[in-house]
């Protein structure tokens, strides 16, 4: 009854062009933001029982840098299964390596988990706001996170460490469920070994070989040494953890505008068109995921928003 004419086009057709205004647009950026670009898995590391890291390179073989800012994310597509938003966990100073650390919790992450080196995955991005690493220059920097939340913060940690002289005291506080769930253990140990960085780790449930803290990550805050009036805090974790962390930081004297949180919401498009990630008037995909707490504090207090 309805006679539709399907116009098929290659993504490279000029009149379909949508100018990619991102200053750091990857060389293979598609002309429609909903089109995934094939990337090849060049390395796969099992981090934890349910968490793995993959390193990607454009399948076109042309290489090129995938420039991103710490805290941004990509939509990763497993052929025929679906797409999920995943933060970039690599070093922003080394954009030739596109790295994601993923926890296997659903159908798509399971499909990606099953992929091997050489397999292809679709990538759209980078999307979203970033940790304000430039704005934090001259201040103390606090990284407070738990579980997989360390992955989206690793690019910020890499940046601070690579530009260590530009920052004041550097504090990393991390919580995991158990010692076996401590992500990036080797790196945490290495950072902890530095005399210019304070690292403290806690677990909810210890095993007999655990020599560290037991309890929630917020407990680590009181012991850490920083100047609350000249500090920026970057927080990523479950909303409940972030609420308690903020409470503790506020009581230490940190201002709301110096606290940054990374929000998680359902996302289908990552470009503000699907409506799924709305958080009050914010689109977490494009206004976030990183927000100054001062812009979301009223919203975070309301349940089920």
């Amino acid at each position, binding site marked *: 009854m309805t006679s539709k004419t*399907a116009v098929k086009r290659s993504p490279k057709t000029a009149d379909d062009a949508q100018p990619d205004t991102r200053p750091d647009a990857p060389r293979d950026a598609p002309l429609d933001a909903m089109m995934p670009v094939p990337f090849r898995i060049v390395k796969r590391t099992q981090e934890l029982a349910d968490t793995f890291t993959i390193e990607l390179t454009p399948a076109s073989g042309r290489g090129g840098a995938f420039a991103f800012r710490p805290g941004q994310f990509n939509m990763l597509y497993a052929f025929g299964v679906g797409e999920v938003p995943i933060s970039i966990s690599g070093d922003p100073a080394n954009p030739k390596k596109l790295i994601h650390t993923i926890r296997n919790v659903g159908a798509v992450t399971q499909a990606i988990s099953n992929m091997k080196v050489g397999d292809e995955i679709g990538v759209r991005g980078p999307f979203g706001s970033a940790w304000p690493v430039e704005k934090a220059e001259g201040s103390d920097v606090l990284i407070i996170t738990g579980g997989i939340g360390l992955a989206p913060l690793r690019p910020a940690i890499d940046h601070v460490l690579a530009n260590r002289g530009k920052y004041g005291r550097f504090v990393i506080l991390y919580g995991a469920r158990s010692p076996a769930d401590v992500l990036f253990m080797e790196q945490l140990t290495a950072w902890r070994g530095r005399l210019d960085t304070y690292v403290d780790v806690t677990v909810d449930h210890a095993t007999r070989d655990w020599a560290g803290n037991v309890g929630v990550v917020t407990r680590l805050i009181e012991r850490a040494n920083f100047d609350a009036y000249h500090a920026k805090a970057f927080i990523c974790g479950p909303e409940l953890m972030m609420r308690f962390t903020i409470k503790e930081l506020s009581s230490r004297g940190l201002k709301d505008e110096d606290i940054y949180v990374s929000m998680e919401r359902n996302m289908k498009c990552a470009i503000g068109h699907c409506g799924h990630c709305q958080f*009050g008037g914010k689109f977490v995909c494009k206004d976030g995921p990183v927000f100054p707490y001062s812009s979301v504090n009223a919203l975070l207090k309301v349940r089920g928003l």
Partner: protein
Amino acid sequence: MGKEGDRVQAAAASVAVIAASEGLDALLKLLQRGGYRTIGPKVRDGAVVLEDVSRADELPLGLIDDQQPGAYRLSQAKTPAYFDFTHGSQSWKRYLFPPKEKLWSAQKTNKGFEVQHDVDAPKYAFIGVRACELNAIAIQDKVFIEGDHVNTSYRERREKALIVALNCRRAGGTCFCASMNAGPKVERGYDLALTELTGKNGHSFLIEAGSEQGEKILAKLDARPATPADLKAAAKAVDQAAQSMGREMPKSARKILSKNLESAHWQDVAKRCLDCANCTLVCPTCFCNTTTDSTSLDGQNAERWRQWDSCFTLDFSYIHGGAIRREGSQRYRQWITHKLASWHEQFGVSGCVGCGRCITWCPVGIDITAEVRALAKGK
């Protein structure tokens, strides 16, 4: 204001004509010869729907509608006119932003896969687009075209579409466009605008051009220039619609909603709301959508489809660990607060145009204007 109004009217008058009602058929033919797929109102299953129309006699001549919360009925009018019903459940959204659309298809290759962009963009001519609808289209333009990223298939359909707008001369029982400043007079964003005239001078249309393309079409119609008396009659008809609005939205809706995120009233609405999502599907501005992926049985071909979604479903806000909006009260709050308050923050306008569809097509007759008033009272 008066002066400005005069100017607009003077400008319009220069490209306004009067055509006999038969001219509607000629207009349809003209558009079809121009390669347009003409879409307009038709009656199906006792309601006005928007479908392909090839001739004027397919239009619902002589029908009017009675719309009330949770109720819709068509009946015969005393005066036979083409457009005296207001609107059915469907809006033009279903053509510019289809309920289901293929975004792309992908084929497995030796090494991986290739992705191909799919665009289905017919050249539409919409017949009888009311002021609320024009405003709704302008709102979806903001969402899909005017932001950082563009929905390219929406843009292509939108750019090709020709709009024959319509000034309402009758308002429905659930209409409140006047209080949303979204009607009933069409102001901009059309190629041609019709005002239906019936009376002692017979059945005719005042047709005004709103674009260069509209002027070209107008020139080809068998019509006479409009007189000041015609313009006056048309203005009177629209004024009549403005005066007969079935409902009214409180002016401070945005403020009322922003201030009442924790109101006890949400529980009250939740007791009535069925979470059926009808309001979001009939809303001409609701744009939320989801994507679904599928593969062929042999696993060689994959597709991604975009389809309408609704914030009333539990899945809508699902993240690992469970849905964010678990309670019906939270989902209704999300919908109405987004529509009337946070939409301003996102797009600089209200997401409501006062068409009243969400009231008519709510199976339990929840009235968006009444809910805002109840929240204001702090019930």
